[in-house]
């Protein structure tokens, strides 16, 4: 039951996307969890969260970006320049952070130098950094602007009914993810953290309907499965910077832990943010995606984020927390220190792990630190 998710999460051009593409379907990439993929779903376009795996070199990323920049957007640019995103007909760049929003310019400029690197539909999507009513009004305008742009470019009509149907479909996926999360919280291991994370990542790069079907079957199977005893493996919560690399979670589990929860924007961090299905769907999307300040880009909302983490740690019985951040990600890097201080005050040990994004070039170093941390928990 896990196979379809592994297939989806293992490669950029995964079999589900390839099948969609081969069937004449359009695929549009996006960069941030604040961008509602329901809009593309409603237009009959496959929304695809842009990923950086499979990056082997960085000459394109480094040519446009400067040196003091997180490696994640550089990897996206590298892959785009190499033509690995040639299956995209569109891309939406959001103001997740400064480095990510500048992917807009870097990709456009790379598009001049690398033929076909730039999708035909290329859109800049602004996201407020706060949740007050005037910010919500701005966000609604941005959502409407995106709907208009998609409609005009692709020649499709995105109706309220389409949007509501897309919202329902995505909500169903969220419910299933939450159900998987509740199973994950059990004392014995029902699903490994690596597999759970794989499912969440897969959900961002495969058709939602199909994802829901597979996840429904998986959850059904997990409910009936005999749990595997934890056998003394330490229960770990992983949080911090953007990550779509299942190997990172695998590395932690291979060191002798079980990752019982994660709070990463490619994971299920936002799964609890159900979108209303009544009323104006644009209002509902704006409220659903902006209401929870899940990312440190929402400045000044640390207490809210830490409360979520604390609840997650308590619910899952996490014995330790791994706080990872990609180098130059100051928002997560700084916030990780605050989280560390607060968790350790509660008696929950933490490991701060600064790393480079990419094909786990630092595996040895990280493995050693993780193992030492787990020993400390024993």
């Amino acid at each position, binding site marked *: 039951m896990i196979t379809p998710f592994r297939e989806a999460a293992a490669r950029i051009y995964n079999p589900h996307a390839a099948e969609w593409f081969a069937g004449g379907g359009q695929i549009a990439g996006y960069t941030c969890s604040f961008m509602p993929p329901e809009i593309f779903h409603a237009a009959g376009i496959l929304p695809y969260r842009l990923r950086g795996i499979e990056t082997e070199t960085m000459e394109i990323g480094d040519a446009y970006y*400067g040196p003091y920049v*997180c490696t994640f957007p550089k990897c996206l640019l590298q892959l785009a320049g190499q033509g690995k995103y040639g299956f995209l007909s569109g891309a939406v760049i959001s103001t997740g952070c*400064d480095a990510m929003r500048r992917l807009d310019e870097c990709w456009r400029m790379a598009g001049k130098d690398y033929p076909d690197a730039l999708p035909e539909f290329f859109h800049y999507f602004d996201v407020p950094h706060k949740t007050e009513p005037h910010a919500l009004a701005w966000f609604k305008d941005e959502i409407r602007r995106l709907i208009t742009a998609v409609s005009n470019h692709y020649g499709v009509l995105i109706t309220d009914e389409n949007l509501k149907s897309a919202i329902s479909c995505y909500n169903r996926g969220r419910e299933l993810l939450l159900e998987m999360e509740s199973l994950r919280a059990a004392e014995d291991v029902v699903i490994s953290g690596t597999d759970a994370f794989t499912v969440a990542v897969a959900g961002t790069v495969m058709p939602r309907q199909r994802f829901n079907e597979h996840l429904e079957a998986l959850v059904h199977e997990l409910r009936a499965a005999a749990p595997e005893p934890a056998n003394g493996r330490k229960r770990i919560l992983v949080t911090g910077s953007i990550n779509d690399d299942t190997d990172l979670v695998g590395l932690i589990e291979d060191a002798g832990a079980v990752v019982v929860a994660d709070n990463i924007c490619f994971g299920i961090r936002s799964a609890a943010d159900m979108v209303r299905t009544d009323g104006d769907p644009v209002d509902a999307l704006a409220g659903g995606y902006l209401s929870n300040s899940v990312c440190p880009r929402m*400045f000044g909302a640390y207490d809210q984020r830490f409360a979520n983490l604390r609840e997650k740690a308590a619910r899952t019985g996490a014995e330790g927390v791994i706080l990872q951040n990609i180098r130059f990600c100051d928002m997560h890097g700084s916030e990780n220190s*605050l989280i560390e201080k607060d968790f350790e005050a509660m008696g929950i040990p933490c490991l701060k792990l600064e790393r480079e994004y990419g094909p786990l070039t630092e595996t040895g170093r990280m493995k050693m630190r993780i193992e030492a941390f787990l020993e400390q928990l024993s």
Partner: protein
Amino acid sequence: MRPEIYQYNYDWMLWRAIQAAGKLADGSEKETRKMMSYIPYFRKTAEVFINMGKPGISYLKRIEQYLDNIVTAHEKGKKIVMTTFCFSPSIFYAMDIVPVTLEVMTVLGSALWKRGTTDYMDYCVELGFTETSCSSQRGCLGAYLAGLGEEIDLIVTNTAGVCDTNANAFAFAQKYLDKPFYSLNYPSGLTDNPANQYHRDDFRELIRFLESHTGTTLDPDRLRAVLDETARQEAIVAEIEELQRLVPNPLPVTYNFVIYGGRFFFAGMPEYTELLTDMAEVVRDNAQNGRSGITSGIEKKRAFFFYIDHYTLNLSLWDWLDRHGISHIGSILSRSFKDDQPYMKGMEDAAYSIDTTDLDTMIDSIAMINSRMPMVRSIRGPYDRPNMWKEESLALARIYKADCLIYNGTPGCRNTWSNVKLLAGDLEKAGYPTHIMYGDAFDERVESWESTAARLEEFFTIRGLL
């Protein structure tokens, strides 16, 4: 942090040093020269200001006043707000709140002490604030996080949507110091109606925040006085900056620095008007006599800094420019973008105006001023959009007849390091030799000034500029 650093409050140290520096020129020339031997590390910085004559001394006394306001705020019953350089302090002055502007306080420490503010920067890192964050905030922030400054009452920034590292520094401080926090937020557009409406709504929220946390009510008459003074100041600046178009440029190399520094310290306050008046006299006199502001009197080239300047020990950048006969014709920090500034021709959309008709128009005006502050104005959206970094840089380079363009920032500037190569390429294509400096404006450990200077020499030589 080294134990001895804990012995003195950062703000008090700056206050006393600047106070003493402001008195240096009160004695005879011989006395002043003798005094210099006792301040070997601060000497060159002090000389920069003293050699400027009346405006320089006046500037030191204004800075002293700014620091005096901070260290005496609480005994005068005033609240202290921690804020950022790209936030116009005029609303604080209108509400009798004392601003502590992290970046200008870092510049002071960087310029004054041999080790700059590196101990405080490192202290931030000790507490978990990332070492890759911008040094402009970290330098002074470390002192406040260590309790080596007057206690902060509230924190206000305005860079969410413009500069993550800046906003993040204040968010970290908010949590660490457990203080009330408000961050103005900016859409990527500058001139469209939704953006303008957002600026206004957000600023009104800010005023409600300030009123609720300080117990002060915004007084329209006081706000009007501040805005009237701001208008007077910008009129003087307009005259000075218009004269800067002359060849040779009649402004001494340090004047841009003093203009924007004064604005960050005292926008809307008479202190700044007096300073500008003194400067305008010098500039007018130079212009009437066809005299360059360069000490040698010979202007060889004109450089526009399309980001910020370099502030480490001794303000060496300005000395280097002056010695090489290079006019500094401004940076992203220099201009205010008021509607009647001559350089706004062709960029009218991006301008702000001051309307003191009633409270509503005044709040709109001050919201517009804030949304046009350095960086907030031009690096909030894609660099090649109208009114953004590229258009602004090219317009100012053309108007002020730049021979070359120079980028200098900090490694912590994630925003500009993510697109400066693209912009530099475009500027080169537009015909401007463009140099990217890789040092840190506030932290000489990243690249020593000697290395930075060598690279500047190389650039000017290889590109045939000197």
